[in-house]
């Protein structure tokens, strides 16, 4: 089955691969412009909300005593999680030489970069005094002050910025030969820009030699980052003593959740792209089915983790822990938990049935469910534990305000803006690696 797809749909020649993948870059459609304008509009709306927040203070958001973290942290974790699939696919699957990676890794890597860029907005959005954000970075100053490297937030700063840097370099390095192709398919100023972006790549044997070695190292570096970044993010919670957060289960559980949401997001994004850009030769049911299988695996891990949290709460006899999990399930905001369980544990089950797993409509709809469910999972974690913290006298309920929703929409606009820009300016499928899958042109004596 897999071979059938793979063999049947791969391009005949190197040149055909170039042509097919570059095609969408050449002709912007009205549809693209419409989406682009919409993304900018959403971004501006989010920006306006942020302006309000900076002007009037964090009080325009719904955070309160005792729920000091709200949608911003939820969405931060959500986007960081989304940003995992790309590097997972591009690095880990590269290292294990998984062949289906080729078709999807460029888009998912781009998604990673933009998701991390979106996530990076949120620490700033979340800060009470964003204008002092530079204090997060180690630079020598007259005050002789430094940061607290014992703080999980500082680990976050390092983990996310490292992840962003390495992912970006990895993404860029992967793009270099492809941008050279785009260069050669363009003229004038555009050609010059792409030439600079491609660093004048000419595919000489010296270039390929060090390039491939470096690419391997990047993959090797990015692979532990995939596991570490969301572990570090999870430590924001697990290192806190708040009931429902303080758990050693968090790192694996968060990483699994991140991969889960990331793979679902790849389906959500790549499927429309594939259809609109007519890339069925390169990205097809085989890829989506594999992504769905990844989701199934991680969904199983998540479901197990959810169950294990309850077990730990029960087994630990920790009253705070027990209360939190009771409250998440049956408290005032039970529907957050219910949404999470439905979207993350139940909805993906349909993918166990192969025909549904290969049905694009079902794939797409369930992937949307997973995205929603993972956002709610973070809401469930962030808002519930603090709403029902140790001292019952302080209990209160959190719900986002219009400003927070606006910023959430703005962040989606920001992400879409970059992704649309990417789809229009950079090859959405790794041409060079697609070429590696093409049977090389041989005259006769040599075999592949």
């Amino acid at each position, binding site marked *: 089955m897999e071979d059938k797809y793979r063999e049947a749909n791969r391009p005949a020649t190197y040149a055909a691969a170039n042509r097919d993948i570059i095609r969408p870059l050449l002709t912007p459609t009205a549809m693209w412009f419409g989406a682009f304008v919409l993304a900018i509009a959403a971004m501006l709306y989010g920006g306006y909300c942020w302006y309000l927040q900076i002007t009037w203070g964090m009080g325009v958001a719904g955070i309160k005593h005792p729920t000091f973290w709200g949608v911003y942290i939820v969405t931060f974790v959500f986007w960081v999680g989304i940003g995992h699939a790309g590097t997972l696919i591009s690095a880990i699957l590269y290292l294990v030489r998984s062949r289906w990676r080729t078709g999807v890794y460029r888009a998912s890597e781009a998604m990673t970069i933009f998701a991390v860029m979106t996530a990076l907005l949120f620490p700033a959005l979340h800060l009470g005094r964003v204008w002092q954000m530079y204090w997060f970075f180690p630079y020598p100053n007259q005050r002789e002050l430094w940061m607290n490297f014992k703080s999980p937030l500082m680990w976050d700063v390092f983990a996310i910025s490292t992840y962003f840097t390495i992912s970006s370099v990895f993404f860029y390095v992967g793009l270099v030969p492809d941008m050279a192709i785009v260069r050669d398919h363009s003229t004038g100023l555009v050609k010059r820009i792409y030439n600079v972006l491609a660093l004048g790549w000419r595919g000489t044997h010296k270039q390929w030699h060090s390039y491939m070695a470096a690419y391997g190292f990047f993959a090797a570096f990015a692979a532990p980052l995939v596991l570490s970044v969301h572990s570090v993010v999870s430590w924001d919670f697990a290192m806190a003593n708040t009931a429902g957060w303080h758990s050693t289960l968090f790192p694996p559980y968060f990483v699994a959740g991140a991969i889960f949401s990331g793979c679902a997001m790849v389906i959500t994004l790549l499927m429309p792209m594939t259809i609109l850009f007519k890339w069925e030769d390169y990205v097809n049911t085989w890829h989506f089915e594999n992504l769905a299988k990844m989701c199934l695996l991680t969904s199983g891990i998540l479901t197990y983790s959810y169950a294990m949290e309850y077990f730990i709460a029960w087994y630990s006899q920790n009253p705070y822990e027990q209360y939190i999990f009771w409250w998440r399930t049956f408290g005032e905001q039970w529907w957050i938990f219910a949404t999470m369980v439905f979207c993350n544990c139940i909805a993906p089950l349909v993918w166990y049935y192969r025909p549904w797993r290969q049905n694009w409509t079902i794939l797409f709809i369930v992937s949307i469910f997973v995205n929603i469910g993972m956002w709610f999972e973070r809401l469930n974690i962030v808002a519930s534990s603090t709403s029902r913290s140790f*001292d019952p006298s302080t209990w209160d309920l959190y719900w986002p305000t219009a400003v927070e929703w606006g910023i959430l929409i703005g962040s989606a606009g920001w992400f879409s803006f970059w992704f649309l820009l990417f789809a229009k300016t950079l090859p959405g499928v790794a041409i060079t690696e697609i070429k590696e899958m093409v049977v090389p042109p041989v005259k006769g004596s040599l075999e592949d």
Partner: protein
Amino acid sequence: MAGLNRRDFLKALGIGSSASVMAACRLDDNRYYTPIEQVLPYVVKPEQITPGTPTFFATSVGTGPNAHTVLARHRDGRVINVGANRRSPMAGIVPTDALFELQRHFSPDRYQAPAKKGGEATDWDAARSELVAGIKAAKSGGKKVAWLGPYASGSIVKLLDDVTDGNAVYWEPLGYEADALAAEKVFGKRVLPGYDLAKAKYIVSFGADFLSGWGGWELANQYAKAKDPNEGGFVARFALVSPYQDQTGANADDWYQCKPGAQAQVALAVAKLVAAKKGYNGPAARLVAAGDPAAAAAASGLGEGDIDAIAAQIVSRDSVVLPGGASGATTAATELAMACFLINVVSGMAGKTFGLGTAYTGPVHSYGDVKALIDAMNAGSIGALLLGDVNPAYALPADSGFAEAVGKVPFVASFSSHPDETNALANVILPVADVFEDWGDEEVHAGLRLLRQPAQSPMYGALSLGDVLLAAARDAGLQAAAAAPVEGEVEGEATEAPAEGEEAAPAVAGPIGFTPATFREYVKAVWKAEYSGANFDQWFSERLADGFMHHDTAIGAAPISAGAPALAGTAAIEGEGEYFLHAYPHPFRKDGRFANQPWAQETPDPMTGMVWDSWVCVNPKTAERMGWSRNDLLELKTAAGSIQVGVEFYPGVREDVLAVAFGQGHAANGRYANGVGANVVSLLSAKADSFGALAWQQAKVAFNKVGTAELVTTIGSDTDQMRMMAPIADADTLAKVGDAESAHPGEMTGIHHLPLDARLHERGAVDFYGMTDHPTYRWGMTVDINACTGCGACSVACYAENNLPVVGKAKVRDGREMGWIRVNRYWGYDEAKPGLPVENRFLPMMCQQCAHAPCESVCPVLATYHTIDGLNAMVYNRCVGTRYCANNCPYIARRFNYHSYVWPEPFNLQLNPDVVTRTMGVMEKCTFCVQRLRSTKSAYRDQGIDRVPDEALEQITACAEACPTDAISFGNLVDPESGVTKHTKSGRAYQVFAELNTMSAVTYLAKASYHRAEDPHHGGGHGEEHGEAGGEHHEPEAHGDAHGGEHAEPAPKAEGAHHEEPAHGADH
């Protein structure tokens, strides 16, 4: 203060402060963002003032029986805070009233100039001449000049009586009129008897809110002493006989849910039983003969056994019975007070816990007197009415006819410095200087006089009331009735001289008249007239520095007056309907006088956590029966009127009672009070009891649900969810083992995993990181939950000291309140009787300054960290606002600045210059008043002392200083001899969430309760009575039936007691 010419003083202060931040001019080239600040030196610097260093002025706040001595903290030209006067014989505390007065002092609504009717501003000269003209016109027309003002004592009373020829009425709503009238009837003197709660082992209150200021804040302090297990190991038992537990009543160990109106009958029955048990046959026996336990039980809903149990407790040990206050002021208010006095007499406690020797002897007028004044006004015999800082137009029921009567007076002047409903009736408003700007004195009792002196120059050039009156009297050509006894009712005045005791000469004051140029001279003249020693000026300066004049005074006997009428045992409240209205004084807003103070509105109500509103307390069972839920809006209706209030579930109220607090629903009291909540007085009519005391509890109430209210409470849960935040220690065990250092700290709390400081070093070996090293100090605090009465003084004091912004109702609803100390309230129920709250606890919760603070390690920029002195530091200007610390604090002790708040001028003048105001996006929290620690350390270092002694630390924080019951103590945990270190070794010691291993620096001491007897023989019944000698060791187990009155257990009744017919006398 002594020796300073007052005019110079005012001039100097009026000029301004040393380092005021004034202009914000920028340099022309705009290169510099910061404003160039100005530094404005004094022109003539007063001697006492050192810029940058606080100067303390001993003064007194509150008037008449509510007066308390305090220290006004003056800094750079203004009073910035009120501190405890620990040199005085009064408790070294800061009443919440004093803090509200402080905020009132800086209120933006304060009149800045005299005003005419309609609000037209005028100047002082014009207003004063109008006053003189008004008085002259009255005099020339042969009419009287009358004064209606709040309670007062000392020189101002003399002056006012002189100015008005004795037509001065001193009356306050929710005041002491019933007590004064009762004393007049029983003891023949219109005084307020003195109490000494500290000596009592059994305290009965019929509703008086003596833990929130009733009878002076001294009583709250004495209560804590009675409750202190260190004093003999025995914890006084407090019984409440009232339909409603207010903040005071919530501290009760036994709650007898007396039906409204039956308190007097119960008290009389108790009196009779006590007399019988004691075998008393003195002159009071006749008066209480009408007591009928059976009838009282029937009327009150208590069991006869309950009534007997109260009497049994009273006789079994030293006791004191407090009257009803406003909560017990039914149409039998005076009778209730009389009965209470008589219980104290027949139980033999007069001279020990009760007496007239320390009675307040200033004038206390009743509603009857006010009514007489109203009648006189209506009759046209009053030519000029002078109104003090009292608000009858708001506080009197409408059918008293006050407003109409005032309309008939040709000239009405108000001397209130703040707008209120009554001022609108005045022809001219002369906003005189307030307590922080004026001279004065108060006579607390015969042996204790307080002085008041200006602690800053008057704002807006306000003049002193005394100065204005003296000048007006002279200008109007009044003649002082020198030393003539003022007519009629002011017997208290007449008794003043004999009560002076041996030291001060009993010389009758010579005629002072209106000759002194200023009121300061006048006060001095009054004191001089009574001073017999040499060198008066020096003596007076010393008294000024102290703030008081004191000589030991015995509590004195309470001889029954020969003509005392016998009590009838009148039943009170009548009317249609099943539900009673209970109107109670609010612990902060009192009768409404502090309603316009944002602190009084925003500090959460001690019992409900409500802010900025009125609500009706409904028993949950009632609510269930009626199908109400929290926040339903009820319309309450009586014959007099109706109000709309939201429903709050409240276990501490009888099922047939709906309770609403006084003090809200103002129409013209300023921007913060107007339109907030509802005025419960609109439900009342002007009913007085047969002696003339206004009945605040008089009505049955009808109601219907009209919608949904928007009540805002800061309390998230009614219980501690079994989290052992406020455990209970058994009082009987405590009486046996005492509260001294225990080999097993915390053993009495039932919490068995305490990393208390005493054991920290032992535990160090098993800790991953070990204990933090504190070489010199580790600042620590202990909070005695047994002493904490939930009054909220700590919270308010924190607002005043640490520049906490007030955010308003909407923002509190959104969870943005800024109080650094919150007082968690936990309803605690009798295990035997679910739903009966008799183990309520209050838990002041502030930053615990943990040694292993969860907040510190998560801050990415090191804005919070552990100092070398053991504090959990918070550097505001380093904070970037990640709020991670607050999330990670199990005590949720941190507050976040969601906005930048602005202090409307002149509130900003009250800001403490030692504490920065925080802007938006910054986390803040309790710092153990590090600014005070810093300046104290600095002051000791000035003397070459590197380690501050414990006695200088005990009350150094604002909360500890303010606490009326000294529940909060502070000190150095490194010092093994310090008070806090010893507290941590108590058997009652525990730390909240100790299992999280935060190693906090705050230790709580568990509340002692009489409802946790584990000893089986304690549990069964209550026959086991002991004589007085044994009483301090064993508690008669009355708790089995001590409350609720649901089952009347056959108790050892005082069968042989007198069963005389109730003497329905002419009173009725």
